[in-house]
């Protein structure tokens, strides 16, 4: 008994092995003879598995693909598939360790901002698929700024993701989202960025924040009270008019009321 489990274990090993590695004799011997040889029949499945997963990564990381070119991207993606095969029956979210992988992938180190572009693309997709929620409007938000303590706190929309980069990552990403890539031929202002990626309604927005605003939102995102978040913003960027920055974010449906976590 247990023949099915053994066969599937052998088959799975073969599918995830590097493309050039042939099937074991014990697997090939299971294939009924006739017509195309067993190795060619098995190779169809292996090719399907790899191209499906590489295509899924290309769909998640289009700007990375444009930055490095299709050939390099597919090479890197195949390596990634071998090291981090998917573990969930849905491909949504597959590639969550691709940014980290690119950061350690020796052939990619000549493009130091590549992992951050990948991270932005991952967060973009997370925001795209995140839960829906009704954000506060500006009046409700302003009310919260002046209200006393009660059992609710200010939080971020469930689609909100924060990231910072020492590169102008959102500008590089924007230039490489289009089909015609500029491949670094355009001068990009070289400063670091603090980003909010959010999808309050149907489309994902990538907003560049000042460092103080970013610090305040990060504090809110960690469940800190509004007062502590404002203090964190001012510590990071003394003299910042945080109320102004936060109100303009509220116009873009950024905040929610959450249960007081204290």
């Amino acid at each position, binding site marked *: 008994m247990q023949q*099915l489990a053994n066969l599937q274990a052998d088959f799975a090993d073969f*599918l995830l092995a590097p493309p050039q590695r042939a099937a074991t004799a014990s697997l090939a*011997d299971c*294939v009924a003879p*006739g*017509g195309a040889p067993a190795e060619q029949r098995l190779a169809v499945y292996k090719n399907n598995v790899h191209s499906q997963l590489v295509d899924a990564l290309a769909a998640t990381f289009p700007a990375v693909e444009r930055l490095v070119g299709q050939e390099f991207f597919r090479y890197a993606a195949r390596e990634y598939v071998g090291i981090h095969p998917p573990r*969930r029956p*849905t491909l949504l979210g597959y590639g969550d360790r691709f940014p980290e992988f690119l950061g350690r992938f020796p052939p990619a180190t000549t493009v130091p901002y590549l992992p951050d572009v990948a991270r932005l693309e991952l967060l973009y997709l997370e925001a795209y698929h995140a839960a829906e929620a009704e954000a506060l409007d500006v009046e409700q938000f302003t009310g919260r700024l002046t209200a006393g303590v009660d059992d609710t706190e200010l939080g971020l929309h469930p689609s909100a993701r924060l990231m910072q980069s020492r590169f102008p990552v959102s500008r590089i990403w924007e230039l490489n989202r289009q089909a015609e890539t500029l491949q670094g031929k355009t001068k990009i202002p070289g400063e670091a960025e603090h980003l909010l990626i959010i999808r309050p309604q149907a489309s994902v927005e990538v907003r560049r924040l000042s460092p103080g605003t970013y610090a305040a939102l990060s504090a809110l995102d960690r469940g800190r009270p509004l007062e502590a978040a404002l203090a964190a913003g001012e510590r990071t960027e003394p003299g910042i008019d945080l109320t102004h920055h936060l109100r303009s974010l509220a116009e873009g449906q950024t905040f929610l009321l959450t249960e007081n976590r204290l």
Partner: protein
Amino acid sequence: MQLSGAANPPSMAPAGLRPVPAAAGIGLKPTHYGELLDSRPSLAFLEIHTENYMGAGGPPHRYLEALAGIYPLSFHGVGASLGGADPLDSQHLARWRELVDRYEPSLISEHVAWTGHAGLALHDLLPVPYTTEALNLLCEHIDAMQSVLGRQILIENPSRYLDFLQSEMTEAEFLVEAARRTGCRLLLDINNVYVSACNQDEDARAYLAEIPGELVAEIHLAGHAVRTTASGHELRIDDHGSRVCTDVWRLYAETIERIGARPTLIEWDTNVPALDELLDEACRADAVAADALAAVEGVPDAAIG
């Protein structure tokens, strides 16, 4: 209504669900979301790959909710691994259940294939040897899925590039026996029957003749590619990337003549065409089915249209 049993599978659409007309539908593709909502073409149903809607929210669900108000839905799974040796993934089934509760699809289907092993998900529809051991496991898994969802499911014949020496019965015998034991029904993919038969030098017509019409609740049609291998052999690759081929249309017509019309999906998943071309293929399926039914009834073609 009769109680469900081996010989009397439960009725397809439980009370309250929109029935799917026995006519053509299309696979729902994100590139067509907006145009479908704006133009609302006449279609029997829309089919989705359930796994693509396992995110919490966002545009996929916004569009699906809007389209669910217009068309009956079919939820077609590609990741449950019903043919796997491992137990089904209970978290995956729980997500399936949430989606079924939310959208109340009229049809629910999965593949007779395995898609993962030992915690890894391979995301391909991999072949099962047609053995008694595999049949028993498949039936356990169909029972588990039907019981978690509280619904009858359809199981689809896979496209195959090989058969295993271990097989003890034909694929048709394997599928029919699984349906008889579990009360599930069949999603007959005629392109897959054709692709597998060509790849294994078998007779697609003989296969189709083995499938009792009353078990078939849905039909799939798609295009495939023809490749020549290094040794000069021909293998047909089920890539869902083109129009349905002439031989498959002929087999479809013969099947409709024999068993009557069924909800029929045009699958087109790679090189996705403009919506118009997809709708054109769906119209053709309706026309082929109408001609086939007319032939059965002895009505001249000219009297139909």
